[in-house]
């Protein structure tokens, strides 16, 4: 006997295996099925039940094959079941019209081969129960037991699956028997039925792996996986019964299922069935059977991936407890956290080869649970983080987790959980968070820090106290100062590296979220802390991190000014802030761009001027002269110099706190600087700007302590004349004409300002000159722009010529 089976296994697996062979076998089988089905339908139309059954039996004979792969057998099965349905409909119809035969249940048992016999028996049984021909309970019991006759795994699985599908609507789902009909059965009978079917199917399913040569084991395992839903359907059916309550689940259903799952010692079955149980039954059931379920988990075979099962369960219960936004779905007596925490520890202890990433994944799920279900009790989350750190300390104290490993990835995922759940102020309350962060290598720490910053910026969280800022910086240290384990990265920290720029920009943006809304002193404290932290970051980082500090400091001086009634020390505080900024900007001058520090100095001068505190003039002058020095250092770069000078002039025009002595020094310097610029057009333009320094710029009148405009006519005219003279020396015709236009515009401005010595005659002569010069420029596209500018000037003048002031203006087309 054993020889024959062993040999048959080898033969059948070799014969049917090739793809083409399978296709042909399936096609042949399908054709036979259709032929028999056709014959069956034809004789049924003629009311010959016996003939119909005979053809049906022939058709079902195709399901006796051992040669098809499970996938192909399934396809065949589907078609056969479809055709069998016709028989069922026909018989049901007969009974409805009172023409049913009463002995079919016995007749079909004379069919020669067991597979067709049982399929027919199930079909007839189904019809008879529905038609009340036979008592339900007896028939169901009969069918589920008789299916034992097919012990071949594949055929048996599909047969029992057909049984399950057929009785879907027939399973009794009541507490007590129906009084009218006899022996209809109760919920307990249904449970017996399904549990027996389940245990038989599981047995067959597990047996599949032994069918054939050991070299084909992988293929068989894959085929088993494809068929798993057949076994799982039993569990689904159990979950659909309404009379199953928590009590029955706990005492009957779960223990019976677990018995099979644990004792089969097959990892494919165990993994699938445990997941199935979690998914298929409602969460209240799981809550009430946690201990039993978790105990069974510990008894699973060693190669089962228990991590996914536990995580699945934890996540499901977490979702359940936070459904509808409340945390009240879990009854008081079930301490979810404690139970899982304990059980996970047990599982980890019992599986010594569990890889660290699995342990971390479990801790992550637990962390998720504690943060979502116990939102305001930080000690739970803290405990999980502490335990995680301990696990790694036990493996290797003070060693980092290697970058890129699965364990590192899981740790990163874990650290993201609190960031997602809470805002950063609550995260800071988890004081063991940084313990876990320190476990990671540079690249992962970097990822987590970026994530944290992005989260703060997205959620627009405000961080109001210096202490919290300090705690936050502790976490973000990886981005702020050079790390000992980032040798490769340090070499790439320049502004040419896009990632570095992005990273530091984010750190800088973080600034805007450090706000102590009602407490300027606290804000000052924050600024100091930021400075203390960032000064260790190296020059390249300071390029990004210092400017926000400086700008915030300036903003803070304004705040102090606003509360000057309440705070008598406000001026000293402003002084300290400006000194701080001076120091910081000074550091920045070591960078190669002079533009940034120059602008920051000028901004400072403006701020000091607006504040008007007692030392404002000294401070503003100091800043201004520093800016001037930086300008002088730009000697080699004409374009930069010209731009910087423009900035200087513009700023001076706005600064109002200089007394005459300082103001005139600055006016002179800037005007001379204008004439010393290398290119003529720059000289002209800048001189024109300087005219405003002598007119609308304001200086402080010492006696009245009020600022007044300079209004120095002579100097204005001198500048204008000089500018005109320089313009005549320009060789490029188009540029010259353009500048004449700009000159004219400036003269018009001062004419409107009623500067003495600028009268209509002067304007007319300028207009005439311009009109003459205009003819010299070409008519190509480049000069189109200049022509338009001039046209605009003339249009303006024409408009104004109506006014009394402009009487005598000579402008023609």
């Amino acid at each position, binding site marked *: 006997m054993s020889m024959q*089976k*062993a040999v048959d296994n080898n033969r059948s697996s070799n014969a049917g295996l090739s793809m083409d062979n399978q296709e042909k076998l399936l096609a042949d089988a399908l054709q036979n099925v259709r032929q028999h089905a056709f014959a069956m339908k034809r004789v049924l139309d003629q009311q010959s039940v016996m003939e119909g059954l005979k053809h049906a039996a022939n058709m079902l004979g195709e399901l006796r094959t051992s040669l098809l792969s499970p996938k192909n057998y399934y396809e065949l099965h589907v078609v056969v079941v479809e055709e069998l349905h016709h028989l069922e409909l026909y018989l049901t119809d007969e009974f409805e019209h009172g023409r049913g035969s009463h002995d079919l249940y*016995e007749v079909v048992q004379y069919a020669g081969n067991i597979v067709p016999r049982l399929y027919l028996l199930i079909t007839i049984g189904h019809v008879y129960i529905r038609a009340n021909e036979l008592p339900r309970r*007896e028939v169901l019991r009969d069918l589920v037991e008789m299916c034992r006759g097919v012990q071949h795994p594949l055929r048996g699985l599909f047969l029992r699956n057909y049984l399950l599908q057929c009785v879907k609507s027939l399973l009794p789902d009541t507490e007590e028997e129906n009084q009218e009909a006899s022996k209809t059965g109760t919920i307990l009978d249904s449970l017996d039925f399904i549990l027996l079917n389940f245990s038989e199917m599981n*047995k067959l399913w597990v047996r599949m792996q*032994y069918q054939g040569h050991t070299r084909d084991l992988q293929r068989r395992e894959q085929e088993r996986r494809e068929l798993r839903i057949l076994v799982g359907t039993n569990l689904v059916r159990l979950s659909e019964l309404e009379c199953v309550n928590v009590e029955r689940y706990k005492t009957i259903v779960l223990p019976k299922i677990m018995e099979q799952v644990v*004792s*089969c*010692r097959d990892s494919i079955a165990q993994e699938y069935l445990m997941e199935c149980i979690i998914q298929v039954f409602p969460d209240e059931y799981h809550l009430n059977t946690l201990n039993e379920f978790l105990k069974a988990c510990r008894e699973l075979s060693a190669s089962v991936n228990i991590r996914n099962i536990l995580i699945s369960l934890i996540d499901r219960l977490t979702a359940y407890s936070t459904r509808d936004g409340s945390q009240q779905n879990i009854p008081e007596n079930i301490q979810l956290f404690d139970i899982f925490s304990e059980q996970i520890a047990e599982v980890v202890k019992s599986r010594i080869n569990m890889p660290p990433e699995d342990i971390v994944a479990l801790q992550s799920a637990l962390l998720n649970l504690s943060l979502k279900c116990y939102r305001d009790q930080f000690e739970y989350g803290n405990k999980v983080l502490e335990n995680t750190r301990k696990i790694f300390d036990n493996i290797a104290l003070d060693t980092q987790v290697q970058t890129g490993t699965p364990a590192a990835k899981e740790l990163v995922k874990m650290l993201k959980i609190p960031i997602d759940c809470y805002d950063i102020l609550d995260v800071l309350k988890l004081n063991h968070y940084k313990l876990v962060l320190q476990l990671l290598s540079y690249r992962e720490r970097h990822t987590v820090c970026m994530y944290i910053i992005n989260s703060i910026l997205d959620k627009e969280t405000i961080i109001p106290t210096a202490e919290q800022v300090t705690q936050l910086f502790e976490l973000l240290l990886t981005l702020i100062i050079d790390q000992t384990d980032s040798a490769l990265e340090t070499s790439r920290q320049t502004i040419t590296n896009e990632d570095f720029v992005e990273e530091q920009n984010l750190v800088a943006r973080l600034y805007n979220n450090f706000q102590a809304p009602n407490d300027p002193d606290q804000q000052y404290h924050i600024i100091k802390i930021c400075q203390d932290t960032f000064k260790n970051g190296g020059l390249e980082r300071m390029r990004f991190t210092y400017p926000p500090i400086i700008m915030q400091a300036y903003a803070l001086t304004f705040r102090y000014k606003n509360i000057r009634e309440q705070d008598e020390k406000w001026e000293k505080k402003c002084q300290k802030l400006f000194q701080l900024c001076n120091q910081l900007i000074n550091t920045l001058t070591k960078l190669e761009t002079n533009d940034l520090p120059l602008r920051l100095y000028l901004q400072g001068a403006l701020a000091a001027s607006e504040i008007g505190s007692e030392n404002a003039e000294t401070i503003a002058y100091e800043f201004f002269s520093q800016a001037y020095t930086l300008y002088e250092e730009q000697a080699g770069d004409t374009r930069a110099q010209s731009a910087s000078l423009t900035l200087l002039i513009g700023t001076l025009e706005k600064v109002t706190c200089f007394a005459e002595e300082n103001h005139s020094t600055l006016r002179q310097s800037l005007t001379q600087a204008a004439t010393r610029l290398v290119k003529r057009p720059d000289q002209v333009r800048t001189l024109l700007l300087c005219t405003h320094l002598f007119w609308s710029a304001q200086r402080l009148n010492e006696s009245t302590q009020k600022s007044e405009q300079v209004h120095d006519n002579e100097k204005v005219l001198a500048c204008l004349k000089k500018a005109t003279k320089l313009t005549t020396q320009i060789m490029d015709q188009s540029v010259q004409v353009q500048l004449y236009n700009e000159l004219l515009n400036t003269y018009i401005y001062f004419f409107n300002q009623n500067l003495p010595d600028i009268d209509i005659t002067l304007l007319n002569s300028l207009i005439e000159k311009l009109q003459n010069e205009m003819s010299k420029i070409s008519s190509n596209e480049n000069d189109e722009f200049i022509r338009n500018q001039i046209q605009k000037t003339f249009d303006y003048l024409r408009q104004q010529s109506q006014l009394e002031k402009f009487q005598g203006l000579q402008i023609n087309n």
Partner: protein
Amino acid sequence: MATIDADNRREIARLPSRPISLEDRYDPPANFLEIEVLNPETHGFGNKRYTDYEIRMRTNLPVFRLKECSVRRRYSDFEWLRKELERDSKIVVPSLPSKAWQRQVPAFLRRDDGIFEDEFIEERRKGLEQFINKVAGHPLAQNERSLHVFLQDTTIDHDKYVPGKVRNS
């Protein structure tokens, strides 16, 4: 109805059955036997060459002392086994792949390498594998000491060998 009348008609009543134990349900079946013939190697030089094969066996049948073993055997060992079984057991022993006399004609008269040709060796290997699987699976052959010596002793010591029967261990 067939189901109800069972109480009155004992001849068609269901036989009482004991539920099967959990071990019997899920344990691997106790009839596992796999024998492979692999790795043919030709040893020696010139006229004194011969080819042997690895016989690898895995089983959980109780009658075999070792559950896993691997030995090397040559064609003449198979012939010896067949002779022993034909004499001592009552089974009709299947035939071996052919002796290939043609191929054993002297080398200078043949165009190819005779019995050391790769194709031929592969053909022979398949035949030997079929042979040994059929034989070892037969319960009556499993009782013969010759089979056990062939499959599980590292070398067949013809001096020490005494024919006999093996009972279940």
